[in-house]
């Protein structure tokens, strides 16, 4: 059973405690939404888990293995995958190359392909097939030879998700996957997440401000406020809690 757990995870920026002793466990087979006001520390919390930032104190463990000292790349190879709030791809490589890079990055053995100097990149049939399959899944096969820089915003977001899928991690972390996205585009990404949810061995974390999305997808909601974990539980009851109503939703003004 590979569960992700944080223990007393803390980081300060100057005097400001951005993540404050967060202890939390995430079980496979559940989608946990993390909500909280702007600047609550959600992205920072992700950064601490995936290793983009090093915690001042506290631990991150995956399946009992302590990853607190591991680098970002080590954590990814250990099974922690994430997509970013702002799109963060390889702009002047093609769509296919982007995915293919992710495919060979983490699975046992394939990482070494990155160190293979003496074969032609496109000759690795099995890896190419896998990349193709993933592009198919996100309906981007048709654009596989385009440079990512030339893709529209929505497709770039989809590619973010595709990269995450290519990593085949134990834990998927999405940071506002639909931000700035049109009503026509958002459902495509949400569908992908929904599909992922069906695999019961995967743990999914989702940061999202759109409450309707959260309500629909989340099995559990964790609320961060000023860096601290202030609420944790089933969606309905968390949303109803006064702290969420006041600090987050703004005195229940938003009823949508």
């Amino acid at each position, binding site marked *: 059973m590979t569960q992700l757990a944080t223990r007393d995870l803390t980081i300060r920026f100057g005097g400001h405690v951005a993540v404050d002793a967060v202890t939390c466990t995430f079980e496979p087979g559940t989608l946990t939404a993390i909500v909280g006001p702007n600047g609550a520390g959600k992205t920072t919390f992700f950064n601490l888990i995936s290793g983009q930032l090093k915690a001042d104190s506290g631990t991150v463990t995956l399946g009992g293995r302590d990853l607190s000292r591991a680098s970002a790349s080590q954590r990814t190879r250990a099974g922690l995958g994430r997509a970013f709030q702002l799109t963060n791809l390889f702009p002047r490589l093609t769509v296919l*190359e982007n995915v293919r890079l992710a495919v060979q990055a983490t699975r046992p053995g394939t*990482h070494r392909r990155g160190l293979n*100097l003496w074969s032609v990149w496109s000759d690795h049939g099995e890896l190419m097939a896998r990349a193709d399959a993933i592009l198919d899944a996100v309906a981007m096969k048709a654009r596989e030879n385009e440079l990512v820089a030339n*893709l529209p915003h929505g497709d770039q977001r989809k590619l973010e998700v595709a990269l995450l899928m290519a990593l085949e991690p134990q834990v998927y972390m999405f940071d506002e996957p639909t931000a700035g996205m049109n009503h026509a585009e958002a459902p495509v990404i949400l569908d992908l997440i929904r599909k992922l949810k069906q695999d019961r061995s995967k743990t999914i974390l989702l940061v999202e401000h759109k409450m309707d999305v959260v309500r629909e997808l989340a099995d559990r909601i964790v609320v961060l406020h000023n860096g601290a974990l202030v609420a944790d539980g089933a969606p309905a009851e968390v949303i109803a809690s006064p702290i969420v109503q006041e600090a987050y939703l703004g005195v229940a003004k938003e009823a949508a």
Partner: protein
Amino acid sequence: MLRHLLSNDYPRSRVLAAILVLLFLGLAFQPFLIPGIKALNVAAKILVFIVLVASFDLLLGYTGIVSFAHTMFFGIGAYGVAIASTRMGAGWSAILLGTAVALVLSFALALAIGLFSLRVRAIFFSMITLAFAAAFQTLASQLSDFTGGEDGLTFRMPEVLSPGFTLSETPVLGLTLDGRIVCYYLLFATCVLLFLALLRIVNSPFGRVLQAIRENEFRAEAIGYRVVVYRTLSSILSALFATLAGAMLAIWLRYNGPDTTLSFEIMLDVLLIVVIGGMGTIYGAAIGAGLFLVAQSYLQDLLRLASGAVADLPWLAALLSPDRWLLWLGLLFVLSVYYFPTGVVGRLRALRAAGPLRTPPPAAAGPAASDPTKSLQGDYVENN
């Protein structure tokens, strides 16, 4: 077959392919085409610079590392052969041993630099390498017992490679096949081999990871690649190839000194060639080296003609004086950055891709970035 030789990285432009074939044939038959020592020297220098510049392209164009210390490795290679040949006397063993020792030294230095590069910002790193290269040059002239100091080393090559040796008494196609020609073809073969090797490396899975790091180091680390390892490896590889280029130069010149391989001027030439040819294309190295070295070698002759033609305009004649050839080279520098931001190769490939005025694809976002150097700005990547 061709696919394998070229590692599935075709020129992707008919004009480009034609130029490359011409260049290849030109170099292959140079001794028979244009007689004379000068032309042969220029051709040999092109061969050396193709390897040198391609190795630098691996670092700059593919990995996005701007280093001014690349000539250091070039120098190490040349000094390796030079010192060994001076101490051990002319011979193949001197060449081999000198090259081997140089490779080991380059390996160690590149490793150190590669690891160091991670501590500092990209732009910082390049300025530090500038200072480093200067210090290394000083060091080379200080250790005059080994390196011959400022005066450099003059040495001999094995008999077969020396002008005194003749392969056949009867001239072939009007050319006496002496040791010089043998030496030229040794260089030619080495150049082709190393060039194809570099082409293979940049088109391997490893090469793609390097490009990913160039594009977005932060994300490369995030999807599981240890950027340190790849960057260091790339530094080392490019250093080793530069070392081999240095050895080639020493074999050809039978001379080496600090100004010949270590000077900043050579670094500038290399940079300019990469830019002219097109960064991140390897083919650009070959085309750039050809264009640039021919221009450089014959610029003064050209100016002599030009200034003669305008002799009655003293003012213009002063500018066109062959002594001011650097002025025009500088102008070439500026203009090529201006008008060939993606180099000859980039231009030719874009030409093929660009049709008439197009309406955009349904929702292509962002400017069509085609400038590999852009990522050098990415010292700070947003990690939200």
